[in-house]
């Protein structure tokens, strides 16, 4: 089967049915191949945060769908996203995960590429007839866009501008970055783990509040009473989930923590009192309150179609590997230049929930894998995402807004999936 024959099949888009999706969306390798071409081959895909490539010559390996890429910063400071494939005979030109370099040299026959991907030098050029036109054989470049420090790339040279694609998600990204407490945001390290599941099972999860008290019972039990109260959003009625268009959605769990620069005179929660006290010698009261409030992260999860989540205080990035394998990165964020003890506390909070041995992630991974395993049964039955349908209101953006546990975010993602697969 060739991709051409697959992509002309109009049946794929019809598998998303608004309030439900067909089971083969999790199971069928042919659908996965089409997704890699039509979604990850076209959309703006999150590849890195600027703090991972802070200076000239810095690079970081990443992925766009199943394709390996290099995110690099050239000598003028411009960002590039390059397919990690030598133009000669396809060897990867870099296998160092992250670092600093002046060029990428292919290990096979020695073709050398600049940080912007252009082909600079080839050994024994006289073996090619006529003049060797280097300008045609640079590393493949993706279009690059950044917003608030997040670097996105797309294979589609005709794609709409990144800011248009992010659209209604932009104000939420702006709010998310306030967790720097006045300092720039930087990555503090990441947890990476692989789960035997389709990538969309994870995509659905970032704005799924419905599962929280069930799956994360043991996490909730490990919290002190006051913190536990913070996570009781399923019992409060002030949270919501909102379709932001273009497949993006936001789930607001703690409305009082949407804008971290507001309500700064609220009492400092018990668990942050020691931190606040330790900052007294270096910061004034207003700045201490700002830092302390930022440490716990924002009160919402933002899902950016197709692969990025801005969740409380970290990025959650997914990478589809195959139809039933997905890699997840949980990237901890901190305050660049901020107080060490505040960043330490953010690291400890991150470790508490996230990652392969956190108090939350293994339970998420277990249920995600259960979805994949269960979907091998009854492939003719649909996966239901109709919770909250008929109970939604119009958001200020004129898009559906449901209660905190509504499956509005999943419907938003599948609507975009359907549009791109058509």
């Amino acid at each position: 089967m060739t991709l051409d024959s697959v992509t002309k099949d109009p049946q794929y888009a019809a598998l998303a049915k608004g309030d439900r999706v067909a089971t083969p969306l999790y199971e069928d390798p042919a659908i996965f191949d089409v997704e890699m071409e039509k979604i990850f081959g076209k959309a703006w895909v999150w590849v890195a945060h600027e703090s991972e490539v802070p200076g000239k010559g810095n690079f970081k390996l990443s992925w766009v769908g199943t394709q390996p890429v290099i995110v690099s910063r050239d000598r003028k400071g411009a960002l590039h996203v390059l397919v990690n494939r030598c133009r000669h005979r396809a060897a990867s030109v870099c296998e160092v995960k992250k670092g600093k370099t002046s060029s990428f040299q292919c290990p096979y026959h020695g073709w050398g590429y600049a940080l912007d991907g252009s082909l600079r030098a080839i050994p024994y050029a006289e073996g090619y007839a006529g003049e060797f036109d280097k300008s045609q054989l640079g590393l493949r470049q993706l279009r690059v866009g950044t917003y608030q420090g997040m670097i996105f790339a797309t294979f589609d040279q005709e794609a709409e501008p990144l800011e248009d694609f992010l659209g209604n998600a932009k104000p939420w990204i702006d709010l998310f970055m306030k967790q720097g407490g006045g300092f720039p945001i930087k990555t503090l390290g990441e947890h990476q783990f692989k789960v035997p599941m389709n990538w969309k099972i994870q995509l659905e999860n970032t704005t799924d509040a419905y599962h929280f008290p069930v799956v994360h019972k043991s996490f909730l039990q490990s919290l002190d009473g006051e913190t536990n109260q913070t996570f009781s959003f399923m019992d409060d009625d002030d949270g919501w989930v909102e379709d932001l268009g273009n497949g993006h959605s936001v789930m607001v769990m703690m409305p009082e923590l949407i804008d971290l620069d507001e309500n700064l005179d609220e009492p400092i929660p018990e668990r942050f009192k020691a931190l606040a006290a330790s900052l007294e010698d270096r910061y004034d009261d207003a700045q201490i309150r700002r830092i302390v409030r930022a440490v716990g992260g924002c009160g919402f999860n933002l899902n950016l179609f197709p692969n990025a989540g801005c969740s409380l205080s970290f990025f959650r990035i997914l990478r589809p590997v195959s139809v039933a394998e997905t890699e997840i990165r949980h990237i901890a964020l901190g305050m660049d230049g901020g107080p060490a003890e505040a960043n330490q506390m953010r690291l400890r909070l991150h470790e508490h929930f996230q990652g392969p041995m956190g108090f939350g992630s293994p339970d998420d991974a277990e249920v995600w894998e259960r979805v994949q395993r269960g979907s091998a049964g009854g492939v003719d039955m649909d996966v239901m995402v109709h919770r909250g349908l008929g109970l939604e209101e119009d958001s200020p953006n004129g898009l559906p807004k449901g209660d905190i546990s509504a499956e509005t975010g999943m419907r938003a993602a599948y609507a975009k999936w359907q549009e791109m697969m058509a």
Partner: protein
Amino acid sequence: MKDLPDTEITLDQAVKFLWEEADILDRQDYDAWIGLWDEAGLYVIPVDPDTEDFADHLNLVYDDHQMRRARAQRLQGGFSISAAPPAKTVRTLSRFVVTASEPGSLTLRSAMHVVEDKFGRQRLFAANVEHRLIATPEGLRIGQKVVRLLNSDGVLTSISYLF
């Protein structure tokens, strides 16, 4: 640090202790495991394979006494779906190297292999483990344990037991 008995810890004592710990962890008897610890001890599984500065880096596990107890509770409380039932494990510790020895304390590094079985599939983890053991009137206790997983900064799987 409190006064330690001046006794020398022999390699034989230490290895027997570590094998007992391994057996306890494979049996998932976490209450017994908590009892092996000195309360002031730190249990760390770092992400960065080379760091010694655990506090300022991201770890997979960074447990003081309180977090160790919370973790034990999570793993055996029956409320964690990933641990009910948990994966079964069989582990082997070998290649013991003493890296520091003082009266009342011994630090040793060992190689560990853990095989996990769940959902009809098996997974394998390998790690270098460093234990600092201390002698107390009640017997040996763990003063610090650092597990350096192979590929700790790479892609792992979710894990619902202890190393």
